[in-house]
């Protein structure tokens, strides 16, 4: 395991920069998650670290060594690809053993067997070791792909949306499993996703990407509570943050220049209509099982917020609304009043 440093890295594809002057430090043993919508440059960033893509500018250091010009094989990284990139003609066992059998490594065969079996148990694919890779379900393939990274002890694990093709239950299990592996092995992991739950639960730090630029990086709590701008604020939170023009709802001590107010469930106080200054109308109540979404209309603006399961509200009912310390943004979308 080692620390990894990206220093002002840029990668262009014919004019457009997929990654733009990206600087990122991943500490030894740290779990960093890159979050961003499709096309934000997440995969490209990982490929740059792996050496599958050459940086047009900037430097990449792994364990203090400049690897910017090195081949992937010389960098000692493990990569879990977005598509399951299994060797289709090999069995699951041979797929897992493939990186260990590299002549550069010279592991004795019993040790290979030992490690493969252990990894297979971890990912619960022991019963599939003799199957051919193409005979697996999508979820099994992805676990083999993860396993092929885990059998090694590379300087850094690069994972490109490894859980996106799994069902919710397995995803939740593997999330915990990956977190555990991270803690047990002390692994350095750079992990890409557009799933905010994965980001929130696993990351030591979350980096938010937008069009190839790193907009903000920090702990999950920091990103959630103190987003630097509107873009970051909309990336986290479920239901998504509500954005209202300033003035629709009164904000006590709003900073000067506030144009947009970001309202999350925890910022909103809802009460039975009792003659408050601002009132909203309940337009719909959605029961999602684990949460309940309340849809409101306030002066032609729609709000979605969480309520407890048995709130005594009905569609069409008027409610009192008040805000408690919402997020305030200026005309350019930068958050105001933050530290």
């Amino acid at each position, binding site marked *: 395991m080692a620390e990894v440093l990206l220093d002002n890295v840029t990668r262009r594809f014919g004019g457009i920069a997929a990654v733009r002057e990206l600087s990122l430090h991943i500490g030894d043993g740290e779990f960093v998650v890159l979050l961003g919508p499709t096309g934000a440059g997440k995969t490209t960033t990982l490929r740059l670290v792996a050496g599958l893509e050459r940086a047009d500018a900037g430097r990449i250091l792994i364990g203090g060594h400049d690897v910017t010009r090195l081949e992937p094989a010389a960098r000692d990284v493990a990569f879990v690809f977005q598509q399951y990139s299994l060797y289709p*003609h090999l069995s699951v066992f041979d797929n897992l053993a493939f990186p260990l059998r590299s002549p550069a490594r010279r592991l004795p065969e019993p040790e290979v067997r030992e490690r493969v079996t252990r990894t297979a148990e971890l990912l619960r694919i022991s019963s599939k070791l003799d199957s051919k890779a193409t005979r697996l379900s999508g979820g099994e393939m992805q676990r083999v792909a993860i396993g092929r990274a885990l059998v090694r002890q590379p300087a850094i694990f690069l994972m490109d949306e490894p859980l996106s093709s799994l069902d919710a239950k397995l995803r939740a299990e593997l999330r915990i499993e990956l977190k555990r592996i991270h803690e047990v092995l002390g692994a350095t992991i750079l992990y890409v996703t557009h799933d905010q739950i994965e980001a929130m639960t696993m990351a030591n730090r979350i980096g938010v990407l937008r069009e190839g630029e790193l907009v903000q990086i920090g702990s999950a709590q920091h990103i959630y509570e103190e987003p630097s701008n509107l873009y970051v604020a909309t990336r986290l939170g479920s239901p998504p943050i509500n954005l209202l023009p300033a003035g629709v709802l009164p904000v006590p001590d709003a900073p000067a220049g506030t144009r947009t107010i970001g309202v999350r469930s925890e910022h909103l106080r809802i009460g039975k209509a009792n003659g408050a200054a601002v009132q909203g109308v309940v337009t719909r109540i959605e029961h999602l099982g684990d949460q309940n979404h309340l849809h409101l209309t306030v002066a032609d603006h729609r709000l979605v917020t969480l309520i407890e399961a048995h709130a005594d509200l009905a569609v069409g009912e008027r409610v009192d609304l008040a805000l408690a310390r919402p997020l305030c943004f200026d005309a350019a979308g930068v958050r105001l009043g933050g530290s």
Partner: protein
Amino acid sequence: MTDTSGPVVIRDRAGAVPAPPVARVIRGLSDRAIAWLFIAPTILLLLAINVFPLIWTIRLSFTNYRANKPNVPLRWLGLENYTSILADPDVWQAMQATAHFVIWTILLEVLFGFGLALLIDKKFRGHSFWTTVILLPMMLSPAVVGTFWTFLFQPQIGLFNYVVAFLTGIDPSSFQMIGDVPLAPWAIVLVDTWMWTPYVMLICLAGLRSIPNYIYEAAEVDRASKWRQFWSITLPMVLPFLMLAVLFRGIENFKMFDMVNLLTSGGPGSTTELASITLKREAFEKWRTGYSSAFAIILFVTVFGAANIYVKALNKVKQR
């Protein structure tokens, strides 16, 4: 289980009367009858031009029939044609010449074809232009190829002898590719390789292009050398394609006639007399129709049997 035409069963199962198939409404024909109507012409054609001649040939192979003397009464010979063919040293020589031809052409075509495919797959500048150039020989008719190589092989004026002479310093008129007994079998191997290597290349290229790039990327990250990538990814994944190419070329060359007939007509002596040339001699020069029918059946069974065994092996490789 007495009157179970299709729709009745459906009604029983669904518990409701389904709308009758459209075809039934229009013409009063069942779907099955219409299906037969559509495939009947093809089946009749196949019977007329494939199955019937085959059966007729099998029948003739047990007789002394001669096509140039149709009025001689037929005599039933039993297996006599077959036993005399298998005892005929000329036939065995033809089989040997065929084996030499088939094995060497396949070997060389696979070697060069695969090699070229690997090069072309590198997508260097102008690779599509070179692909077209390489494919040209395959697009020529065997008759044209035969004629044109006869000229190239001319000892006095032929380009081939001139080039060999230029490269090695041998006197160009000191050897004749299609006239010298030791050289002639290689002359036909050379021409067939020249003509059909592009075909093998094309099939290999299809195989190479079917390997997704990210597999190589994964291998690279897994620290596999180029050499290991070739042996553990490229070769196994192209192998089914390669085997298919071998099958096609094997069958084709086992039956090879036109190009070799034009180039050497089996000579000098009978050094390049492949099985199908012997067959043509027996059938249309000696007019031993019954005998040559038996020979044709033997060749057919050989190819058919070998191809079947081979296809089984191919399927095994694919399923691995």
